[in-house]
């Protein structure tokens, strides 16, 4: 058997598209977190009714960059108190079939902190798909 020789081969399981959509998230150019404060989180929710154990294929574009970033987590460049740093983006399928994209600014312990320079609008492009275990 050589699965790659055929466009479609019924001997081998495949993936089926489930749902797809686009969501937008604008993050500000300045985030202040006081000493003892909590992480600051910005969230975009894509209500597409994704199946419970659906897989996720996604990429995120930004009005600040000319390229897209692939996958369910990545970092975004910024400055933290004037030094090179990053905030974090992660994408999951939550209850009710929603796809959630979160950008998290981590609160440091024992000091005030200021994140700057990351202002942009992110666009999440997500497709979910069913694996052979679904249906």
């Amino acid at each position, binding site marked *: *058997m*050589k*699965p*790659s020789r*055929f*466009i*479609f*081969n*019924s*001997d*081998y*399981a*495949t*993936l*089926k*598209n*489930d749902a797809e959509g686009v969501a937008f998230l604008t993050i500000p150019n300045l985030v202040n977190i006081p000493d003892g404060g*909590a*992480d600051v989180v910005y969230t975009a929710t894509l209500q597409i009714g994704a199946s*419970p*154990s*659906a*897989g*996720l*294929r*996604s*990429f995120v*574009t930004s009005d600040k960059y000319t*390229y*897209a*970033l*692939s*996958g*369910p*987590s*990545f*970092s*975004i*460049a910024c400055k933290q108190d004037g030094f090179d740093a*990053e905030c*974090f983006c*992660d*994408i*999951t*399928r*939550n*209850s009710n079939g929603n796809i959630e994209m*979160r950008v*998290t600014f*981590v*609160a*440091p312990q024992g000091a005030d902190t200021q994140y700057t320079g990351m202002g942009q609008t992110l666009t999440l*492009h997500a*497709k979910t*798909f069913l*694996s*052979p*275990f*679904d*249906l």
Partner: protein
Amino acid sequence: MCLTRLNKLMAKLREKFILNSDYPVDKIVWLKEGDATMDAWGNINITLPHTVGAQIYVNGVWTIDDWTTTYNFSAQRQVAQGYEYQATAKATDSTVKISAAHENGANKTFKYRLWGFISEESSKGIEIKPTAGQSANRLVFSSDYEYPMLYKEGIATPGTTIAHGLGEIPYVDVWGKMQNDTGYSIVAGDCFGEVYGYGENIKITANEVIFKSTAPLYESYYYRIYLP
């Protein structure tokens, strides 16, 4: 001019079919689902053998709340206390190793579903066991669904740019093998690369997939580019 317009029209049309004989669909060569209990700290490590006989590239999903929340392998979330969750599924030519952690996962049931692909190059000259009957889903093909159409796949190294020329940004899955390591695990687009100049650093444009040379931690990538 007419040919350009025709090409654009064809590009739009090819996405409208549930199956298109110009493009193969994913063929899964390895499947596995299971569950196990996370330890008291919310960690778990599982090693699964496979007998495909070549390097495979594994992706999948996992949960600790019976699929109320579903995570992809390679996803991670960093919070003030460290990681809220993270997971990898690293495959070699004989094993798949799962490593996962979740801050709320102490003694909870970790459920996973994994599927693996093989590269065109690796599939030459070996016999691969059919997988169509290995899952609960006996219906391999159903016209109720569309199928992800594979446009291009292959191996790339840091510093390589792969031209796809689709004219719009495609969905891309990428697996990476770290230096001095064995096995590939699926990786996300850009972690630390833009800021610190290291780590996986993959950028997708309307015509290219760029594996930046500022990614010395990875020595090799396997990519699959799908039609938008």
